[in-house]
């Protein structure tokens, strides 16, 4: 299954690290990059995205606020919050919004596990 993934991070380096992990894990998937919440919401309505990976600490809306907005139109889309901020409140809020949590620094193992789970959920939803 080939997916289109939205990567939202204000840091170019963080987007590069993510793209580099995808080249190893899922080289044939398409990535759409957004630098903040408004770009991300636009991409979700116009680009037909399957999965979203969202940084937490961003100017404007933070990652959790963005996930909450995404949930208004995409209640079942596989979404992960990506952050080095492992505080209980942040992880708990991500759970409430049915988003996974992937710690930074990003590892292939953590991203790979989330993507495998996401594919299963997408397959289930389409069958």
């Amino acid at each position: 299954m080939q997916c289109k993934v939205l990567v939202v991070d204000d840091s170019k380096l963080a987007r590069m690290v993510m793209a580099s992990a995808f080249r190893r894990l899922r080289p044939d998937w398409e990535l759409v990059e957004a630098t903040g919440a408004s770009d991300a919401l636009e991409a979700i309505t116009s680009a037909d995205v399957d999965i979203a990976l969202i940084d937490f600490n961003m100017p404007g809306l933070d990652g959790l606020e963005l996930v909450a907005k995404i949930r208004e139109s995409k209640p079942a889309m596989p979404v992960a919050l990506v952050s080095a901020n492992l505080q209980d409140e942040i992880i708990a809020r991500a759970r409430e919004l049915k988003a996974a949590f992937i710690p930074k620094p990003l590892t292939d193992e953590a991203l790979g596990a989330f993507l495998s789970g996401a594919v299963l959920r997408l397959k289930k939803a389409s069958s």
Partner: protein
Amino acid sequence: MNVEVVELSPIERDAFAEIANMGVARAATSLRQMLGEQVLLSVPAVHIVTREVAAELVERDNSAKLVAVQQSFDGPFSGRALLIFPEAQSLELVRSIVGADQSLEDVIDLEQEALAETGNVILNACLATIANVLRKSMRMSLPTIIRGDGATLFAQPPGGGNLVLFLYIDFTIKSRGMRGFIALLMDLPSIAALKEIVQDFIEKVER
């Protein structure tokens, strides 16, 4: 006077801010564990500025009376990491960590030690994350406490330059009305070394 001008390219600035942000986010996670309350972080700011400007940046919106726990770090690049907050909040912070059942006298007795230990945990979480991400090892000094205004905190050490790479992130603990900063300060030779390491890191990512 011959002033060497070091500038960070946009991607170098972005990379440094992102790497430091991971460090500070881990530090906030440690502070949260010690306080039992959520710690909110700002988006990081990275500047190459004079020490005077760095001092003004931390004094802005703060009283000029500050307390800082500082730790020096040394490795491929060197500098100082500081946990800074208004002096008036220092006892409140200590009390939050040691527990509200301690008497004021005990808290005052414990203040110095508790600040140093808190700083040590938080700054180590920050610096160790940065070192791990860059795959470099860094030595860290024992924490020391400084009290004074921004100029005292960022005073020029003997042999140090006046221009510094200054990164700061503010944190707030809403439920206790507390705020402070985590700052990293590096001088010119370190900026040059850091640029190379960050360049290396970016190249590896692009490969």
